[in-house]
């Protein structure tokens, strides 16, 4: 492989990252934001989003692509929070309570998601995406009609005036930033939510440890070749379901962390964009559909959110309209996902073609059998 070719493969591998860095850096001066401000924002957003993005890792290892179905976990987390607010459980205890309530819901939804995806092998992503919408319908039904009527809601402040259903916006004042504020480090003018970061670090350690377990190994095997894994006796379908369940549960916890930082909950659409932002982040970080690392997660969150912080103001300054920046960042978000998927699909096909290249060409065939063991046989006859 020539140096030039190496360079071009490297470029195509990190194309998304490179494009992103360029756009973001270019947008910083016109935005007029100070570097300290941007850094503080990035720190905050790292704490807010990393956990959610980490939830995407396991399904990628298990070869199920980007788990758009993580939204299900987000919904479970929201249900947990609704109950925590309803029962008036405040502070970090409220968060733990929300997690404990959301956990079984997340496991159930993850299991359903895994079953559905096993029926749509090879189309996991689109299926997960639609499944998220479908479950969203059921979530809305549950929150809008069941809560307050079938399941009594003690706290009238969160119920719609008609007597059942939860209000559009839920004030999470009682748990707002309760995790971040347990220990808020102040270093050189930056506020660092220590406990949040410790939890994220613990998750990273868990993921690294998990890769070393039998189950983690099985997941990698299933992700690379389902047929071989099956023939070696690994329960393929079950392994895939477990991967999705873990991802959903992590997404549930991630959404709780996300929302405690935001401080309020748009009951009916807070989860809409969860999958989108998480997927965009991990892709921006250089991950692909089959390959991702913890580093991808953090690089991605930082880059994506740096761009998100900068672009509205840059749009305002450059085009005189904040909306342009707003649209631009959405455009970039969706564009990044589309681009990564295209690059990935394209690369896979190219790699497959290259792998077979050795079999092509008549006279320049590979080492194999130049005129077979002619001499040997001649002797025998």
């Amino acid at each position, binding site marked *: 492989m020539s140096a030039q070719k190496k360079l071009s493969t490297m470029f195509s591998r990190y194309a998304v990252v490179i494009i992103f860095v360029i756009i973001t850096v270019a947008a910083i001066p016109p935005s007029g934001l100070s570097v300290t401000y941007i850094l503080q924002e990035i720190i905050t957003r790292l704490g807010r989003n990393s956990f959610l993005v980490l939830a995407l890792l396991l399904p990628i290892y298990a070869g199920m692509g980007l788990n758009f179905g993580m939204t299900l976990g987000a919904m479970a987390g929201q249900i947990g929070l609704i109950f925590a607010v309803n029962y008036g459980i405040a502070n970090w205890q409220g968060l733990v309570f929300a997690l404990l309530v959301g956990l079984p819901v997340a496991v159930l939804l993850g299991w359903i998601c895994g079953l559905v995806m096993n029926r749509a092998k090879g189309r996991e992503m689109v299926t997960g995406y639609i499944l998220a919408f479908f479950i969203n319908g059921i979530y809305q039904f549950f929150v809008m009609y069941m809560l307050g009527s079938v399941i009594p809601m003690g706290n009238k402040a969160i119920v719609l005036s008609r007597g059942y259903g939860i209000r559009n916006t839920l004030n999470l004042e009682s748990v707002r930033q309760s995790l971040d504020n347990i220990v808020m480090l102040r270093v050189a003018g930056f506020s660092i939510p220590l406990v949040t970061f410790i939890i994220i670090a613990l998750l990273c350690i868990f993921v690294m*440890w998990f890769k*070393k*377990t*039998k*189950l983690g*190994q*099985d997941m*990698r*095997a299933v992700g*690379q*070749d389902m*047929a*071989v*894994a099956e*023939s*070696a*006796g*690994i329960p393929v379908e079950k392994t895939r379901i477990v991967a999705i369940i873990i991802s959903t549960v992590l997404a549930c916890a991630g959404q709780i962390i996300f929302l405690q930082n935001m401080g309020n909950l748009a009951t009916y659409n807070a989860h809409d964009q969860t999958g989108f932002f998480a997927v965009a982040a991990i892709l921006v970080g250089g991950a692909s559909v089959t390959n991702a690392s913890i580093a991808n997660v953090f690089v991605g969150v930082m880059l994506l959110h740096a761009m998100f912080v900068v672009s509205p103001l840059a749009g305002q300054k450059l085009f005189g309209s904040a909306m342009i920046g707003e649209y631009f960042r959405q455009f970039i978000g969706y564009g990044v996902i589309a681009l990564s998927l295209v690059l990935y699909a394209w690369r896979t096909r190219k790699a497959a073609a290259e792998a*077979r290249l050795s*079999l*092509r*060409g*008549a*006279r320049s*065939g*590979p*080492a*194999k*059998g130049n*005129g*077979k*063991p*002619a*001499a*040997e*046989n*001649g002797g*025998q*006859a």
Partner: protein
Amino acid sequence: MEHVSKDFYGNVVLHDVSFELREGEILGLVGENGAGKTTLMSILFGMPVIMETGGFQGSIRIEGTEVHFSSPFDALDAGLGMVHQEFSLIPGFTTTENIVLNRESMRRSVLNDVFGERMSVLQRDRMRERARKAIGKLGVDLNPDMLVSEMPVGHKQFTEIAREIDREKTRILILDEPTAVLTESEAEVLLQTLKRLAAEGIAIIFISHRLQEVLAIASRIVVLRDGHAVKDTANENINMRDIASWMVGRSLGEGGQRSEARSFAENTFRVQHLWVDMPGETVRDVSFDVHRGEIFGIGGLAGQGKLGIPNGIMGLFPAGGEVVLDGKSVPLNDPAKALAMGMAFVSEDRRGVGLLLDESLEWNIAFTAIQVHGQYLKKALFGLFSQRDEKAMEDLCQEYVKLLDIKCTSTKQKAKELSGGNQQKICLAKAFAIKPQLMFVSEPTRGIDVGAKKLVLDTLHHYNRDFGTTIVMVSSELEELRSICDRIAIVDEGRIAGILPPTADISEFGLLMSGAAVEEAVNA
């Protein structure tokens, strides 16, 4: 293994096959395609397909006790190991990880008690140790930390064998065409390895079409033909020619009619240095000529590349080389051009490539003609649109239904509802409908019953005689080729091993198929 019989829905594939295998013995199992090797191994290995199709008769005993395997995992537990023709390796895993796949060494972790055994932690060093031990037994040099995707093929094969060796219980090792993908020197090392393993007391069943390899290492040879174990002999004083004739040797009376010998003067079709990248059927360097009006047969064992030849010429797989039809060069990799030049192709993959299963028979027969020659269309809306001429299509379909005696309820019936034989006739009709000068027919009788086989062959025969169409027929069934072809080329390892008249001695064919040299065939 005693008195094993197996039939698939009344179609007897194995007939009272018995053999025994001693500790440390290498048994060479040879036979043509369809002789029953694969079925035999499936039975031995407890493949679910056997159970699903009604089980088998006879019994298998290991060390005197009768065993019943309901799944391959039972067979593994009983000490059988199998290396398949296709690699069963995870590309992104290292040698070690593949060798111990799903049998990893593990240490308990705290989560074991909560979520079960799969939360145990892998012990990498121990796994590597085991891999090293298994590789050591093979006596080859394999890096335990190399990724499989970066390995040469030979190493992949060794990794597979090492995986079987690593199971301490493995006493019987079955290798299905293990040398097919190896280079000569790699194959040599493999044979040495097998001998070494046998010396350690492992019994080996070695399946190969390369007879010289079988002769080189087997201590006993079992020849299967048409489901019968025709020969079970020690490897003493026999040569390749003997085995070859046992393999293919039907008495001539069975073969049925022979075409009268014909001679052709004119060359119509010339292939020079053709290579085709068809997965599993790679063609490396093939050259041959076809005379006008003849039926040219191409035979050979599965996977040797005979199927790649028509597929490559018709542009279905990436190909290169020079193909000339009637003095005009045929552009490769462009099916439309190939069809337009007057060539037609009946694919061996009837259901995958040959038919539109969800469409009517009319569609299936007329489609190629519509696309290639613009036939069976009529103008509609003052010539603005061309429309399918459903009436003409139906007439065409009716004509062939009658001509080929296709059994169907109506011409509107969906192709998937027909039986295999009738589907094959539809494929033929599709090719006939474009009135080709040169027709490739690939495995025309695969998977259809005897009556239909005869009908298909007769159809080809008549079509050739009546219209003078040149036919190139590719088939795994030698007898079939010999009954209808004027000349037969045998393909081996992606090259033409030799071209013989159908009247040539059966052992000649056998030798060519078994990797004997071209020169030898010429001499003989």
